[in-house]
């Protein structure tokens, strides 16, 4: 096990990644656009990056403390599940 400070390129930060597969790139992008506009609640010490590649939504977190990381990831998963449920109930997206 790497000594503290050596892992994660020496930043000492906790990192968490999540990959979510979607049926299509369009749907992954819809989820991205719904989930990315709101800012993290003021507490510093956390940043997250949401991207889409192909039909996969990827999220990468970087945090100073486990507690802050847990709250952010937890929140995101709740929000993601609401977006997924909405897409299930009111999808598929209309033809462009």
């Amino acid at each position: 096990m790497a000594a503290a400070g050596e892992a994660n390129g020496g930043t000492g930060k906790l990192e968490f990644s999540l990959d979510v597969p979607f049926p299509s790139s369009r749907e992954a992008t819809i989820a991205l656009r719904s989930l990315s506009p709101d800012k993290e609640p003021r507490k510093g010490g956390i940043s997250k990056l949401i991207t889409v590649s192909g039909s996969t939504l990827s999220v990468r977190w970087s945090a100073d403390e486990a507690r802050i990381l847990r709250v952010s990831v937890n929140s995101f998963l709740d929000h993601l599940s609401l977006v997924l449920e909405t897409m299930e109930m009111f999808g598929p997206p209309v033809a462009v």
Partner: protein
Amino acid sequence: MTVVIGFEGSANKIGIGIIRDGEVLSNPRRTYITPPGQGFLPSDTARHHRAVILTVLKEALEQAGLKPADIDCVAYTKGPGMGAPLVTVALVARTVSQLWGKPLLGVNHCIGHIEMGRLITKANNPTVLYVSGGNTQVIAYSERRYRIFGETIDIAVGNCLDRFARVIKISNDPSPGYNIEQMAKKGSQYVELPYTVKGMDVSFSGILSYIEETLFSMLVEITERAMAHCGSQEVLIVGGVGCNLRLQEMMGVMCKERGAKLFATDERFCIDNGAMIAQAGWEMFRSGQVTELKDSWITQRYRTDEVEVTWRD
């Protein structure tokens, strides 16, 4: 013909409403009611809204007899309000806006109340008293802004009433304010309390053991001052506290003395609801406004006078 669906959930009510050219086609709503003695916290409120929002959305469409293809625009509350509930509602609005291929519009909650009040009462250009659990403002329209003439310098009048109800453990069903009003009707002893008006503004936090008479008198005074300042002959009361008949009665007395007209709506529309967001969205959409997804973040602070009122002259 323009059909707008509006999503509202900034406090403990979650409502989704559909408006077609000034006609309310549907306006279902659910309220998160806490046990007596307890207020509502953001995370619990968000959880409540999360559990029912998709059901309420289906109801809104069914009761209006419409399909998503019939909707022209999706409006939602951008702010002000509680963060977690605002996000929950915005997520669904953003998602259906994209699924249905319809433009999105972020609406200021206070302006939702004002535009619904104007629609229902047909008041022409009233001085507005906006009173609710989260807001207390006296507003007048001037040159493309809803100008805030006066406001609370600390807590909203509804917040004051709600906290009082909590202290004496009055039921929160259907709302603490409603139950205070019913009890107050049976009261006869007036207790003199600190009356705090500072010019156009009011302060409520100094006086947490109250009776309506004092709070409402303060509001009538600042509304009258704004009317005098603007030379206005109409008053419109909006916001949940606006349901209170005693407030309407007191405001009515002042209006009669000035030869002014008083306008108010009933509990369907003065309490937070989705159709009011749809109505403000309808006005904004028709005057060419749209919210890009990247700008659709919600905000807990959003002043009524930050919005450019492009739909009025």
